[in-house]
């Protein structure tokens, strides 16, 4: 599970940020909730992954005050939304092909 999660971490991060901006730990919480607790990578991998997505122009990161403390908050950019749509399409194609292959002869 860990390797497959790692391979799709970027797409998962874009997906959890789709509804609205979140700070680093809230992103980790959202990943856990949406993955039903299966997200089991070291949480320390999330912060540099968010920075890499920001560097690519998929996220905008900014310091803001959340709950009385300054936190770095990330929001999806237009480019990030387009990348997420492309990732979803790729995954659905792959998933359909895998389902058909694993189902065997019926």
């Amino acid at each position: 599970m860990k390797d497959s999660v790692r391979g799709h971490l970027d797409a998962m991060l874009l997906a959890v940020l789709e509804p609205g901006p979140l700070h680093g730990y809230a992103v980790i919480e959202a990943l856990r909730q949406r993955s039903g607790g299966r997200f089991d990578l070291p949480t320390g991998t999330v912060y540099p992954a968010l920075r890499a997505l920001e560097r690519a122009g998929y996220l905008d990161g900014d310091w803001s005050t959340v709950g009385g403390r300054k936190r770095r908050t990330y929001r999806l950019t237009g480019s990030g939304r387009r990348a997420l749509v492309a990732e979803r399409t790729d995954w659905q194609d792959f998933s359909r092909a895998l389902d058909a292959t694993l189902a065997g002869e019926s």
Partner: protein
Amino acid sequence: MLPETDPLGELVADLRGRLRGPRSVRAALVREVDDGLHDAAAAYREAGLAPAEAARRAAEEFGAPADLAPLYQAELDASQGRRAALLIALTYPTLTLAWDALWRYASTGDGTASGSVTLAARLLDAGSYGAAIAAAVAALLFGRASATWTRRLALGVGTLGWLSLVLSVCTSVWMAQADGGQGAAAMRSSTPGILVVLLTVAASLAVAGTATSTLLRAGRLRISLPSAPVR
């Protein structure tokens, strides 16, 4: 009684000690990690864990700094490399335009130069614009580069910086001394000439400094994905 430990503080200090790069970017990265760790510990405390156990769980889930540091270092290298690339991309066209303006409008020299000096000047201009274009492309490529490619790009930008600098300094010194030192004499007798020389020296030192930092930092980077179990 055992002394109280601060697992979160120790973890953050360990990670900070492993990172090299632009100070402001490094401070922001480490601060974000520190915030996240304290958020995680607070969540465990709210769930009913004792403070010490909550902090230990948050640190354990984070992973080992030794395994994670290359991922953070890649972001620092991208930042350093992009800054160096942008500096090179801006410096050479600025210097080329400053030297052109000096010869055309500041009445420096008597306007005569041998064919070989004119050819060297044209080659220097072409090389400067070539280096600037290569650096601008590299600055764009840093955006989507993986950790491995970030390191390669940073090494390339550092090498480009030094190579272009050595070639331009050698060519400029030769041109100044050619034709019996006519160019150097013209520079010394003109205020705009002295200002452009000072600008060139300052810009060259800036390129040398940033190219050296980029090469040293990228040279140290080693990529290994974290593999330590979390729970």
